[in-house]
């Protein structure tokens, strides 16, 4: 009894959570969920039918061995049953195929008047996120975290800067590949406020497993507040220690790849760190955002994420401490 309850809980556990297609939070994921449902019902029906016949065959009374063997060539009953059976299989498969075709069609028919334009570029092993709406002073870049206003369709353009990746946020939509030299597009219309997790769904190299992103669905007011904050440059250093950290960032290898708006660091090949501390994770969902993670990541990224493109940058303990303090202040 207890075990059955535990199993039930496990089965239900899959129906909620921040990374599951079974708890859709957007129109697109809802449609994909409907394929799941149809598939489940059709296959369950056939499964039960087959198991039922099997059970019947096992349990029905065995014929007396003394009975003479039947040599009837035409068994009308059997032929009719088999014809019905084949018809049912064809009907079931047709239902599955046409349902999946219709859902696919509806997902592909994106409208043109989307409210929000976002470009997500996959890279080994993180996501560049650019909000490209409006005039250039309203555009900004962040990494590994997407915010979406609830109830509004966002059009997400998917590109890659190196190899094939695949953008997949199961709660919001299906997978879409990012192909070198191509621009793919998906629409997402989130319906439930919450935080969801996405992941690269196409093997892309050494750290494919550590290439996650966070999607925050929030109210329009919260989204506007977040966007206005992202548009501001990084806060100036608040203390001499922060200033030292900023100087270290600019003098060492950090600024060769990373950008901090307002700090004279303009590298474009690595994640934008202007509002690093406002994100929930660092290193593309590898570690939670806090002082300890930052310090560990900076002192030896190759130990935490072997093969990552960030090198071990040698620096003294005092420099590292100041740098972490500065980065932590980039709210």
């Amino acid at each position, binding site marked *: 009894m207890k075990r059955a309850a535990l199993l039930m809980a496990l089965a239900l556990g899959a129906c909620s959570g921040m990374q599951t297609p079974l708890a859709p939070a957007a129109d697109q994921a809802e449609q994909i969920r409907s394929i799941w449902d149809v598939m489940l019902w059709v296959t369950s029906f056939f499964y039960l039918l087959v198991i039922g016949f099997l059970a019947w065959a096992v349990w029905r009374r065995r014929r007396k061995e003394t009975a003479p063997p039947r040599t009837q060539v035409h068994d009308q009953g059997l032929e009719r049953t088999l014809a019905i059976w084949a018809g049912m299989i064809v009907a079931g498969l047709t239902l599955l195929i046409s349902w999946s075709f219709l859902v696919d069609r509806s997902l592909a028919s994106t409208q043109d008047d989307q409210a929000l334009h976002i470009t997500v570029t996959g890279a080994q092993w993180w996501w560049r996120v650019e909000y490209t709406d409006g005039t250039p002073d309203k555009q900004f870049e962040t990494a590994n975290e997407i915010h979406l206003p609830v109830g509004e369709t966002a059009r997400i353009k998917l590109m890659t800067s190196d190899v094939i990746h695949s953008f997949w946020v199961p709660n919001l939509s299906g997978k879409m590949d990012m192909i070198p030299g191509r621009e793919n597009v998906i629409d997402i219309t989130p319906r439930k406020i919450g935080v969801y997790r996405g992941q690269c769904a196409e093997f892309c190299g050494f750290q494919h497993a550590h290439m996650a992103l966070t999607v925050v669905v929030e109210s329009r007011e919260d989204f506007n507040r977040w966007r206005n904050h992202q548009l501001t440059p990084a806060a100036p250093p608040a203390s001499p220690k922060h200033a030292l950290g900023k100087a270290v960032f600019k003098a060492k*290898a950090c600024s*060769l*790849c990373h950008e901090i708006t307002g700090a004279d660091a303009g590298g474009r090949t690595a994640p934008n760190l202007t509002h690093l501390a406002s994100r929930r994770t660092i290193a593309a969902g590898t570690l939670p955002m806090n002082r300890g993670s930052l310090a560990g990541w900076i002192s030896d990224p190759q130990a935490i994420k072997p093969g990552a493109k960030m090198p071990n940058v040698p620096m003294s303990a005092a420099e590292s401490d100041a740098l972490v303090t500065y980065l932590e202040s980039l709210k």
Partner: protein
Amino acid sequence: MGGSARTLLLSALAAASLGGCERETRPLVTPPETGPQSIALTDLYPGSPAPPPKDPRADDYAGNAYHITQGQTYYRWYNCNGCHANGGGGMGPPLIDREWRYGSSIDQIYATIRDGRPNGMPGFEGKATDQQMWQLAAYVRSLGGFTPQASSARREAMRSTPPRNQAKPQEPRPESFTIPQGVSR
């Protein structure tokens, strides 16, 4: 009899396939930075006819395809192509010819990247890490086809020459220009 011959053949095959692994060996532990050291920029030495010993790291980087492709990535990331183009040169000198002003062996290229050179070449010491500068040097060296064939890069978009593993076999190019014995400079 047949069994031992097959074993021999199999082990020979295994050894042959393992030999190919080293060209892409990817070290996951970053070697410690050794700090500045003096690197000779010319073949002319007072007194001794023997050149100073080569940096021991040179062969590790020059003979490894992983390091060369990393260098290829950094070549674009750090805007080397801004001046040197794809090796053909532009504002900066070309990188596919043989004899260079500040030396064209991998450790001399490393020193050039690290310290910078007059008239435009910036120094990357403290900016790029030591390993990145070695990888860049290995890639720059491969632009002119001076690396061993086994370690040539697979991504060929930026190369000025046909891929090494598709090119016709040819005489290996000399490491650097050497004066024949018995000829005075």
